[in-house]
């Protein structure tokens, strides 16, 4: 997993830094975008192997950005993990299924479980 690039789109910067720390301990190369606009710019300009996405952010919701990503011709299939403080209700699940989200984590999350999920998603990706 060393060198795999992960983008975290999250407006709560200290939260994003905790996720970043966790992933960096595993050898990932991590970038943080503080809102959907920044996130969009990062995705268009750089190559990422996985995106961790918050749902409630200023400047466009997480699902709006996910929808945009899925419509990209060359990067439409990047695995996405949703990380949210929102209650995961039917609405969230339906949208997550619609946009082919790989996993949903609710804040506060279990760090070990999160890292294991990220690894298994990327392993599957390699096999494909």
């Amino acid at each position, binding site marked *: 997993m060393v060198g795999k690039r992960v983008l975290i789109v999250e407006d*709560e910067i*200290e*939260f994003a830094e*905790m*996720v970043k*720390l*966790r992933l960096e*301990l595993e050898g990932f190369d991590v970038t943080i975008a503080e809102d959907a606009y920044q996130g969009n710019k990062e995705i268009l300009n750089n190559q990422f192997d996985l995106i961790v996405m918050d749902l*409630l952010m200023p400047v466009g919701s997480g699902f709006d950005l996910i929808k945009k990503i899925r419509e990209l011709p060359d990067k439409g299939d990047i695995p996405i993990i949703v990380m949210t*403080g*929102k*209650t995961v*209700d*039917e609405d969230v699940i*339906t949208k997550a*299924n619609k946009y082919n989200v790989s996993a949903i984590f*609710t*804040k*506060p*999350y*279990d*760090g*070990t479980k999160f890292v294991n999920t990220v690894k298994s998603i990327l392993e599957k990706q390699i096999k494909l």
Partner: protein
Amino acid sequence: MGDSNLNMHKRIRRFRFILSAIGFGVFYWILESIRDVISFQKGRFIERLLFPDLFSFWMRIMVIFILILSGIYIQSVVKTKEERGEEEKRGSEISMIWVGLAFSLLYWILEGVRDVFVLGKGPLIKGLISPDPMGFWMRLLAVGVLILFSLYTQNIINERKKAEENLQKINKKLKELDQMKSNFISMVSHELRNPIGIMREGVSVCLEERIGKLNEMQKKLLLRTRNNIDRLTRLVTDLLDISRIEAGKLKIRRSNVDIATIAETIIEEYENIATKKGVRLNLSLHDRPIRIYGDGDKITQIFNNLLSNAIRYVENGDEIRIDIRNNEKFIKCSVSDTGKGIAEEHLPYIFSKFEQFGRERGASGYRGTGLGLAITKGLIEKMGGNIWVDSTLGKGTTFHFTLEKKPFPKILIVDDSESIVDVVSGFLRSEGYRVDAAYDGESGVRKAKNDDFSLIILDMMMPEMSGYEVIGRLKHDKRTNNIPILIMSAYEVNRELLNHVDENTAFPQIHKPIDPEELKEKVIETING
């Protein structure tokens, strides 16, 4: 509080003109009897009241008949006005005083007509304007009583109306406050998740010694910190749950679930912690599988809450047992333990919020939030069930609950291809649904109108009547316009056309060839709305 009173009041108001006409009629009957006695010296009052002579009897009946007819007429005029919503505007309601005056005038004219035509007392104009003194005072008396009576009634109506308006105002305010409270709790709880998340991760990374070795004391303190962060998390989750239940926002998502499997899975999950505590877990199933049309996640949450509750009150050597019985109309479950039990004086408050009884101190990792049983009760009641508790101090506690067995919904499949209907209906039947089929649009619409379907699965490409036309017909009929429709088609449907039919419906679609798992999910989603 005054609900039945209010309803009664409304009913009286709806028929107030007819009722007052009847009231005036009775009053008129008595007045006539008095007059018979005083002015015509026709015997005793009680005789005149009960057995008037034929002439007088028909006279009275005629007047009362006219009174009631005009009451009905006024009522019908007012009713159409009220139906147009004009009554909502303040003061547009016709006052009872006007009704009294109208009846008085009517009575005066009737008397005049009678004086002239029946008793032969001169020209009509005289009968109407200046009758003989006896008739005049008689009429004045009657009119006076009529008006007093209507003033009195109007007064009662006014007071009732004021009380009703006050009640509605208070009710509205309370609802607003409640909504504010729910929104506030929901907002705060969501906001809390970010800082809690940061704290938990920080502590976890340290605790896992990913960034350096810890000594025993540091480990102990950090572990205690994390346990309390987890407790805070549970509190936030429970607060969100209870505020959603109280705001009525909790949605039940029913599908084909097997309670036996749910219970087995839960027991497995608790096996570890029970073994650690030296507690035996038992499951008595009296039937299996127990398939019901219910919400699996919510049922899991109920068992989870009751089990985690029970495990807190038991000690080494105790036993916890789940018992499930499949009755005809409901499922009866119980979760019992041989633990400490609950004191009798605490039992009435056991399902209230933030009540924790005999909770051990220390081990924060196992401590509850005081909301678990309130949530459990809310969930069970939302699913049409009941929960109650039996407990003896020192012997143990049993929570009993029931879940209503809702019938599986009926689904109509409309498709001209027999083989597709066979495959789809076979699959839906295996999921417990009741299924009917129609092989063309015309009979599909007919069946939908004459039966009670919870969902229509509709093919778009059919000869004769197309899917679009079927949707149009269904949406234009009161009996069918609320039935959810799942479109089944190999091609993308014409959304513009569908929006034209009904712009408020999303019209979910499943693509042919049909994937059973997708069909299952889409059906659950569409039926549960």
